[in-house]
């Protein structure tokens, strides 16, 4: 039974990836923009070769990228190359492949997103659970309220205000970039510390932006669970509050939150990409912004497809975690 479930989820994942790559293939071809022509038109404006040669160059490049073949064959070629994880070459940094660009910038994105996603999930759910727990002290419950106020505010806007107050006015933190200018990247302790120092503000803005949502949903969940019979039973049995909180209340309230985590991944990664761009960290988001500025279509499509695929894959992975968290699912 488990195997069938896994196979079904994998088939769904394949469908999602196929849908995403089909959209990234057909939407650009519906428009009249030709990435190669635009790129070379830009080059010819800045000088470098005569404008008359433009058509010849464009035609030869169309041939090289297979853009002169019939549409259906282009499509099958494209799907095939995605299956081999070949996302094409960058137009603005020509010999570099898109996969290489993603590979270089991925560590920055992962470190920021991993830290902020885990921390906001933990902080938010704990605060929400405490806020709904009738026996918790009043001041602890009041802590949750300011976070709820940030619920509707996207992390990018928080990032702007943090930059203004903490970095620009008080000069406590750097104004962006991945590490201090003038230092050379190496693996020394000081340099690693410098990198982490530059990651603090982006991480705080990501965390502040997403904690409120967790607090709200966890508080609602906690209130529902308090009325459940097994919690009442545990109380009448005379179990101490800490045990009830941890084993009866928190554990059961957390389960739906894990589903919520899977659903929130998409918006989390999206916000992460934009926040990265704002702080000029060399992650995927900044590369996406640069590519948009430079009309580097291959990189735009490659990064978009990569992010889409990773979100879908992570969602399915989180679903596979359920049986480990909830023994009831295993028996089905």
């Amino acid at each position: 039974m488990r195997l069938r479930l896994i196979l079904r989820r994998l088939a769904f994942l394949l469908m999602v990836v196929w849908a995403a790559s089909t959209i990234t293939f057909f939407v650009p071809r519906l428009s009249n923009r030709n990435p190669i022509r635009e790129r070379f038109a830009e080059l010819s404006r800045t000088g470098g070769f005569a404008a008359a040669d433009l058509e010849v160059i464009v035609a030869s490049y169309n041939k090289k990228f297979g853009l002169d073949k019939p549409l259906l064959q282009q499509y099958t070629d494209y799907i095939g190359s995605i299956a081999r994880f070949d996302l094409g070459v960058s137009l603005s940094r020509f010999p570099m492949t898109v996969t290489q660009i993603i590979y270089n910038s991925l560590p920055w994105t992962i470190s920021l997103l991993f830290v902020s996603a885990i921390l906001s999930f933990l902080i938010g759910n704990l605060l929400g659970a405490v806020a709904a727990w009738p026996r918790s002290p009043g001041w602890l419950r009041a802590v949750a309220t300011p976070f709820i106020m940030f619920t509707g505010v996207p992390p990018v806007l928080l990032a702007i205000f943090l930059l203004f107050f903490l970095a620009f006015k008080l000069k406590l933190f750097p104004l962006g970039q991945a590490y201090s200018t003038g230092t050379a990247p190496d693996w020394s302790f000081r340099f690693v510390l410098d990198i982490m120092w530059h990651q603090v503000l982006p991480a705080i803005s990501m965390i502040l932006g997403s904690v409120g949502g967790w607090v709200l949903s966890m508080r609602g969940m906690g209130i529902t669970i308090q009325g459940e019979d097994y919690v009442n039973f545990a109380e009448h049995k005379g179990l101490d509050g800490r045990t009830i909180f941890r084993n009866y209340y928190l554990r059961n309230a957390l389960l739906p939150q894990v589903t919520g985590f899977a659903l929130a991944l998409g918006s989390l990664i999206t916000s992460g990409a934009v926040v990265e761009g704002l702080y000029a960290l060399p992650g995927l988001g900044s590369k996406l912004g640069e590519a948009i500025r430079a009309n580097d279509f291959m990189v735009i499509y490659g990064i978009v497809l990569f992010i889409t695929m990773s979100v879908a894959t992570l969602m399915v992975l989180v679903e596979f975690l359920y049986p480990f968290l909830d023994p009831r699912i295993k028996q089905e």
Partner: protein
Amino acid sequence: MTTLTTTAPPIQPSRLKLFGGYLRRNKSLGYGLGILLFLILFTGIGFFQIKPKNAYPLAVRPKQPPGILDFSAKDWPGKYPMGSDFFGRDMHAVMVTGMWQTALIGVLAGAAGTLIGVILGFTSAYFGGVFDMIIKGICQILTPIPVFMIQIIIASSLDKRDVTIFTMAWIVVMLAWMGPTLVIRSQVLSMKERQFVAVAKLSGVGNGGIIFGEILPNLLPFIAAAFVSQVFGSVFASFYLAIVGLGPLREPLLGNIIWGAQSQGAFFNGWWWWPIWPATAMVLILSSLALINMGLDELANPRVRRTE
């Protein structure tokens, strides 16, 4: 929304008083509407104070600090109360025009998305069958795909010169109908099993009569909530698109302003007011919409009230 609050009591105080009383109980709706009113007043009064031309580049002297903070000046708040940016735009004019444009995108895309959602959700839930399966399938497959990424693809395939406020709205709508479709679909599914629908059917009311006479009036609070959350989503989406540089670059849309400020290194150069005004406005717009949304949720779904 006033009509809903006036149903219960037999002796009617004035509607306004009842509405005020309701707002005192439903705090999030009250605060949300309050912020919205402030924003409307700001843009409304602002229209008479600014020249619309000054919201575009090369209109005024660039890089002027906001005069509203310079209290010692004789002509306070000065010629540029909110300062001017690197490209020579008067920030006050930019904010008034930009907020208006942001609202336009939000309302247009929100209305269109809700309409599509209501129609699709209704037909798929009411008639069921193959159509329902297709709609549900499309929604399920598209859900794990981060909508913003697909919007980037669509927006970057367009020629930058063609992008206007209206194209922005359409880009957002194209991928924003799934949410309301699913909400309306589930509501209609539960509603068509209720007894009053069965009674109507037995008394010989046709499909059209049941949809428009029986189900739709009961759905109105949900549709209103879906509309507000749709406006929120559209403002959010167009802001993200603009902040990565895919907006209509000439227009003083709030996201565009922040994008411009960021590409010119506004904080590095000390022009802090350039990104801060649009960011503040965006925070106000989004939180007012989020608060109204929460309030409407409470109105449409009284069960939420318990969780306070």
